């Protein structure tokens, strides 16, 4: 499978593209959140670098935007595609229709936020020009046969990203946010009491996640996705794990051996030591290009 990774700086672009990422994606130059470039020039430099290395670039516009932002977004996206950007990650159906009405039809890639759960939903987005689809992390391989055969698809690396709840229909705030001022972890990771019993929102374990990764690879999913995050050290580790697991898949390991390898690797890597993906870790230096 090919690897696409979310980045937030030119340094990250340089590192991941040289370390084997097939595609980088990033937010618009005017930040909608902190995991984004701050200047358009940095994006253009990243696109230029990717072109030089014959890799791909995507601009992620995977929010819902207000009408007054459309003109700016269109101009921004047009400037970037004019300079070699390969496509846009989208979720906003109104924005997609606007782009179509303005005859702006680059390669559109649907975000996980599009909540595409079936091939009919894919057709809805195909009618708007979407050609590549991010599979929702709570879709099982047996549910996705039609979807994978209908278009190019992306999956998240299950052992690194499998949300306990379905986005975009999870409305919990982050710890410390409104309504959650005393929360130390996200509600989906928090401990509750239900009567006298402990209660946690149910998750999957590594065996299950590794099996998913294997089965989707067999099914024919083409892309592995590593989401953008503020925690750079964790992002680098996740990338290294993804690259290694992808090599195992490409080598044709049997399912049981692959699942064992994933569980051993993930246990040894212990991603918990890096903290949450939304923690800002500004002190992290990007490793030297050939480290």
């Amino acid at each position, binding site marked *: 499978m090919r690897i696409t990774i979310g980045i937030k700086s030119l340094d990250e672009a340089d590192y991941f593209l040289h370390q084997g990422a097939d595609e980088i994606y990033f937010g618009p130059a*005017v930040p909608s959140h902190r995991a984004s470039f701050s200047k358009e020039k940095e994006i253009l430099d990243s696109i230029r670098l990717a072109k030089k290395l014959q890799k791909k670039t995507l601009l992620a516009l995977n929010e819902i935007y207000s009408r007054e932002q459309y003109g700016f977004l269109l101009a921004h996206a047009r400037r970037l595609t004019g300079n070699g950007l390969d496509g846009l990650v989208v979720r906003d159906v109104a924005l997609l229709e606007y782009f179509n009405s303005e005859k702006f039809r680059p390669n559109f890639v649907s975000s996980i936020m599009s909540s595409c759960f079936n091939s009919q939903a894919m057709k809805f987005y195909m009618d708007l020009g979407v050609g590549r689809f991010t599979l929702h992390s709570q879709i099982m391989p047996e549910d996705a046969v039609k979807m994978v055969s209908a278009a190019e698809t992306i999956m998240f690396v299950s052992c690194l990203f499998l949300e306990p709840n379905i986005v975009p229909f999870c409305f919990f705030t982050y710890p410390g946010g409104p309504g959650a001022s005393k929360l130390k972890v996200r509600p989906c990771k928090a401990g509750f009491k239900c009567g006298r019993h402990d209660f946690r929102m149910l998750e999957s374990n590594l065996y299950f996640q590794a099996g998913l990764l294997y089965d989707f690879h067999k099914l024919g999913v083409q892309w592995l996705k590593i989401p953008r995050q503020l925690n750079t050290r964790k992002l680098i580790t996740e990338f290294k794990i993804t690259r290694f697991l992808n090599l195992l898949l490409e080598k044709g390991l049997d399912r049981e051996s692959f699942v064992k390898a994933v569980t051993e690797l993930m246990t040894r890597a212990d991603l918990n030591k890096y903290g949450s993906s939304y923690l800002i870790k500004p002190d992290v230096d990007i490793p030297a290009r050939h480290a």
Partner: protein
Amino acid sequence: MDQAILLSPTLISRRGTPELIKNSTVYLGDEFCIHKQPSYADFVAVSKMTGKSPVLMSTLLTDPALESYAGLLSECAKKAPGTEVVVNDIGLLRFIDMNYRGKFRIILGRLMTYFFDTKHTRLPGCTRPILWTGDDSDPSGRKVSGRKTGLRREDKTRKAWETKLDATPIAYIRDFIKRYAVERVETDSDYIFRKYACNTDIKISFYYPLRLMAMTRFCPFMGGIAPRCSAPCGTNLLKLKTRQLDYQLFSKGNAYFAKNKLVKHPRLDRAIKMPLTPCSGFKPVTNNYTCPGRP
């Protein structure tokens, strides 16, 4: 104002269901679980019990679940045209529009209205509107000098939802409603209710006494994403206690909720009640489907 009640297909034959329904309009199915979607036999059973066609509920549907639902639609299109269908999946909406346009009365369910207004669904006091501002341009692309860069809290000079992120422009929504011949929209959010009430003339329903906080396929009653299910969740409502959240959280089926008061508004056309049975002694099921102990 119409009063409606949500009814899972597994509850149809239970004793006490007719009393539960009384004279309410029945919403047959489930908005959060693919295993609780109605069959045509369920539709007939409720029609006989109440003397009128139930409203068909739906959720986000996987391809296999959509195929089953298509069977139900096919039967209803022939034998009960004009049935109301609550659509919560954009794929299902397209499917009905392509195959059964005019055969069903389309309702956009609360997942669809959330889909258009994702972040304005939090509890009162929990909204966090963020304006998008940049180095030297405002969101419309005009040059701005002397403005502090970065994210800013809500600019009070700009009111209305259209200035905020995660709110689909109302002009688009009006067009969408017309294009798909939508007759009614539904929500459990006071904010979204007022958005439609103030900007459209469409019928609006409101869900109570719970509002959605999150949905999942990892079902605590089945121990994960189950391929089949006999709906042991029933109407059980689990009260989840923690000191870390400023509001009370509940679990029902495979979704999480907070309390919700019925909105008071002259445009409220239908109130939809979720039947609940408080359940105090529940131990979550694990290691059944998504937590296997070995490869």
